[in-house]
């Protein structure tokens, strides 16, 4: 009797384990992490389904996806990385651009009136933070701005490289650097409000930062397939567009 009871519980337990989870995981580039919180809330409200968000640099997330990380949608900071995944067979659909990003120059202590790209050559600016241009599109754009103004050679020695846009923001807001480059969406987020001053850089000085997302592969009978597609489509909806614009995306 006892054994049978135990066996019954065991079966119930197993059944609980194997209930397919429909909760999807969205791999998110660091520069979109704050806006994604709002998108997630709007999506969950509309669909009644839950999603999880994993934040990292686009490069790191791409590596993880390539090596089999169980993500369902990848919201990248550029188009290059999702394209890479598409080429490697990680998705059946080409990546689509969901927003255009803007670069800002940001400082904790320099007043807004004095803040401009030329102040970076000043002696009082000892260190300048920039997202690693090899893996972060905003870092790449910042280098293009510096080169177009012929400032790169003059300030090259002052540069320190954040692993992602988020670490770069941390270097700036902790006061470890006098100024740094970042994404407009980060300085506009509630989390970063009142953390110093920023100016938006002229977008003609860098190649447009086209941020694309990609729907990752699912087997036809995966319980996550439907929610993933629903969320992917939501990213391009008018509702999502309005939220992206609030955070400075074009």
């Amino acid at each position, binding site marked *: 009797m006892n054994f049978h009871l135990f066996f019954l519980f065991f079966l119930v337990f197993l059944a609980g384990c194997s209930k397919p989870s429909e909760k999807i995981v969205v791999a998110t580039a660091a520069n979109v992490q704050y806006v994604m919180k709002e998108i997630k809330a709007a999506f969950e409200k509309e669909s009644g389904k839950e999603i999880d968000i994993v934040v990292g*640099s686009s*490069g*790191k997330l*791409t*590596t993880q996806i*390539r090596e089999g990380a169980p993500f369902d949608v990848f919201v990248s900071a550029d188009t290059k990385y999702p394209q*890479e995944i598409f080429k490697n067979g990680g998705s059946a659909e080409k990546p689509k651009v969901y927003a255009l990003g803007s670069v800002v120059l940001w400082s*904790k202590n320099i007043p807004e009136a004095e803040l401009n790209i030329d102040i970076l050559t000043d002696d009082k600016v*000892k*260190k300048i*933070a920039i997202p*690693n241009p*090899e*893996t972060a599109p905003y870092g790449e754009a910042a280098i293009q701005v510096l080169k177009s103004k012929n400032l790169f050679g003059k300030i090259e020695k002052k*540069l*320190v*490289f*954040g*692993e992602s846009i988020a*670490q770069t923001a*941390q*270097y700036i807001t*902790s*006061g*470890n*650097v006098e100024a740094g480059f970042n994404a407009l969406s980060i300085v506009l987020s509630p989390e970063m409000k009142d953390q110093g001053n920023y100016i938006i850089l002229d977008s003609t000085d860098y190649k447009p930062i086209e941020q694309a997302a990609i729907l990752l592969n699912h087997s036809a009978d995966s319980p996550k397939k439907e929610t993933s597609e629903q969320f992917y489509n939501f990213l391009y909806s008018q509702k999502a567009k309005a939220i992206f614009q609030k955070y400075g995306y074009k």
Partner: protein
Amino acid sequence: MNPEPLWLTFKLATITSVILLVLALPLAYWLAFGKFKGRGIVESLIGMPLVLPPSVIGFYLLLAFSPSYWFGAWIESVFGLRLVFSFPGLVIASVLYSLPFMVYPIRAGLQSLPPSLREASYTLGKNEWETFFKVLLPNCKPAILTAFVITFAHTVGEFGVVLMIGGNIPGVTKVASVAIYNEVEALNYGAANDYAMVLFAITFVILLLVYSVNNRLLRVRQPS
């Protein structure tokens, strides 16, 4: 492959190990034979880097070294030095991070010596420092060698702390472990493999050397 990150890694590991050897000898002696209150507290503090995640050390150092906080501001005003994103900053961080790896083996070595060795030395008129340098230390060479090499290897393997306070500056703070991380992120698996293979091989050779040497020394001390 750019050899700079590797060279920087070994420079950091060498400087850290030498500084720690100088600091750890008196510290290990004090811990081995000293009688003092609060021993548990001192031992816990020294051992903390063994169990703390490097991100905890990195986070506090980032704040401590920042010119926005008193310590960083003080260093910058007195020495004109900003420790965060600099090689000296990495050295200080590594010294903290590798401290127990130097102190513990030396202390264990000192404690494993027979008490009669010290007693004989005192009886023959040697003072405490002479006894330490001329009698005790030469008798625990294997322990010192082990401590030095493990510290070196541990510093070569440092990653989390450097990632947080280094700023990834080529030739200044971009050590091999961080270079590997970057190459993987940039999807350059070939370059990452080049660095990783060198670290893999060198670490193995270092450890092989120390264990072979130690085995020989220990055999001499215990004739069968």
